[in-house]
């Protein structure tokens, strides 16, 4: 039977593969929803990796995609701790991370904020005015966030967090 540590590393390796795909696809002419799907999966698996390492049973993680908004800020905060980031910068980055993590989590079609946020990076949806929307030509809030200075830093911090688990 695999140990919690083995499960954790396994999730982290899959997270790294998703993030590698995100970075590779950024240079391609593809709809942004395809890239964002990779980012959403990378963050979800990173969150589950830390939960596995902490003793959560993998079977208990299968039924939900809603872990990123809660766990990613804690994981990023740890990276900021181990890097001894200046408190002011760490504070700003954490506030940004909480906003970004929630938007990343909402990319999953199963996370829709009680119907208020049906936008997702996989399936078409009907918006509140009855209009059919497609992920391939939708502009997601997270896209703008990632263009900000802290957005680029957040992506590096996510990569650092994954590397610390996978080596």
């Amino acid at each position: 039977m695999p140990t919690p540590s083995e499960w954790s590393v396994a999730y982290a390796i899959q997270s790294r593969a998703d993030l590698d795909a995100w970075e590779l696809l950024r240079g391609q002419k593809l709809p942004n929803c395809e890239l964002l799907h990779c980012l959403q999966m990378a963050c979800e698996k990173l969150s589950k990796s830390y939960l596995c390492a902490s003793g959560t049973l993998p079977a208990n993680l299968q039924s939900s995609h809603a872990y990123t908004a809660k766990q990613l800020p804690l994981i990023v905060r740890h990276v900021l701790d181990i890097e001894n980031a200046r408190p002011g910068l760490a504070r700003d980055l954490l506030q940004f991370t909480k906003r970004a993590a929630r938007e990343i989590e909402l990319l999953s079609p199963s996370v829709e904020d009680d119907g208020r946020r049906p936008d997702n990076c996989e399936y078409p949806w009907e918006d509140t005015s009855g209009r059919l929307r497609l992920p391939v030509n939708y502009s997601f809030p997270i896209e703008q966030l990632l263009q900000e200075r802290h957005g680029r830093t957040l992506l590096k911090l996510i990569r650092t967090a994954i590397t610390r688990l996978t080596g």
Partner: protein
Amino acid sequence: MSAAILEPSSSPALVPNKADAASRLALRHYEIEPGISAIYRLEGSTESDLDPFILLEVNRDTIAAGIMPLGFPPAPAIGVLHPSIIVEITPEELFRVQAGSLPLPNGWRITGQIHRRVAEL
């Protein structure tokens, strides 16, 4: 992660004592998370100095998701030489913990509070 990205602070003194390490990390988290209103120490019945210290952080800026402990390795760069476990909950969840309707796992119990003013000494 290169130093140029995060511009690290100057290195603090290392604290070998587990209780001091818990206070050191709590200080750091109070400082960088304005939403944290209280931090408590949790301990199990058979905890030793080799076990991680556990912090229950009450944060109004987090999501209510129950008790989801996350373990982290030491952070020597901020003087913390012990591994830690962080349990982050909302103020409403703290009421449920105190009322017993949101139980802590592994026989953990609250053994003390790390006050912001104490942590900032």
